[in-house]
């Protein structure tokens, strides 16, 4: 039992933070920009749209900038970074025995309602990330490290939104009071 618990243990967050900071620095050093995730998801989504409804793409300026005409939305570094994130997450999970089909949810709600909330939350995240021109990785983390004013305002807005609503939706995550 103890061995399993030991295996499931996560890194000390400060250790994870230092490693992530060094990686972020190396990313700037080697590629001139920081880390990202949501942009890659966006491009994969646009690639699928391009397969299904190509004529629609050319008429929508925002999407056309990624996939209009001969442009291939997947021909971009962030798509490869996303592929790497998936691989790295999988290997880390495998090494610790955490790759397992399951649903993480709070003690007071069922797995099914958790799925619904996850979908709605994901949708808000996707919309918000495009509106803010970046997500937690590309805006808050990367822009924060290079002291961009907009990234810091964004970061505090994310925390404000989360903390502002947390008490009202505590049933989703907290144990019964």
């Amino acid at each position, binding site marked *: 039992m103890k061995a399993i618990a030991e295996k499931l243990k*996560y890194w000390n*967050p400060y250790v994870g*933070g230092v490693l*992530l900071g060094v*990686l*972020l*620095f190396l990313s*700037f050093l*080697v*590629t001139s920009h920081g880390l990202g995730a*949501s942009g890659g*998801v*966006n491009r*994969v989504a646009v690639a699928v749209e391009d397969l299904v409804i190509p004529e629609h793409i050319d008429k929508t300026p*925002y999407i056309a900038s990624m996939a209009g005409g001969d442009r291939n939305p997947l021909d971009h*570094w962030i798509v490869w970074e996303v*592929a*790497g*994130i*998936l691989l*790295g*997450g999988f290997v*880390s999970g495998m090494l610790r025995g*955490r*790759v397992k089909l399951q*649903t993480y949810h709070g003690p007071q709600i069922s797995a099914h309602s958790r799925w619904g909330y996850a*979908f*709605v*939350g*994901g*949708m*808000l*995240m*996707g919309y*918000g*990330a495009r*509106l803010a*021109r*970046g997500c*937690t*990785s590309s805006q*808050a983390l990367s*822009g*924060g*490290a*290079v*002291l*961009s004013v*907009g990234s810091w*305002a964004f970061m505090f807005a*994310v*925390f*404000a*939104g*989360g903390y*502002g*609503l947390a008490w009202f*939706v505590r049933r*989703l*995550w907290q144990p019964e009071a």
Partner: protein
Amino acid sequence: MAPFDIAVNLGAGAYYFIYLPIGFAFGFILESSGFGDSRQLAAQFYFRELRVLKVMFTAIIVAMTLIFWSTALGLLDYDMIWVNPTYLWPGIAGGLIMGVGFILGGYCPGTSLVSVATLKIDGMFFLLGLVAGVVLFGETVSYIDAFWHSSDMGTFTLPELLHLETGVVVFLVVCLALVMFIGFEWLRGRLYGSSR
């Protein structure tokens, strides 16, 4: 001098040899830090677990300090690296929406990827929603185009805003992070006891 224009030197090979390994390390660190588990992430907003705050702000101050030092030593050209341009109000509005999405959905885009990679079903639903959200934005951005391009301040940094030397701002940000680590830890102790 860095940054090295790897994409030009390597061409498309940069994708495989640079971005795939960077992404791999990113995903590995996120998963190992517990970010593939929505309960760990959401607990931040109840002060029960502080992993999000600790990992994120430690990473920011480490990367920031390394960038500052290597710039001061002439190893890195700060003017050549990508600094997110500031569109103040769309950024704040998007951030607030994402905060709401975070507490409802339990992940952010990057963390949902490692959750999917470890077969978490809630992560998969989140990722589906994420795709729906970005497609929705792409289809409707033309209606809010004026707002989306409003308050464009270009590249605008905290040292410029505060009229302080970069080194002073770097020091202040490190202090802010330390104050937050101590303050949040204290608050968690008050709320849940200091058993851990």
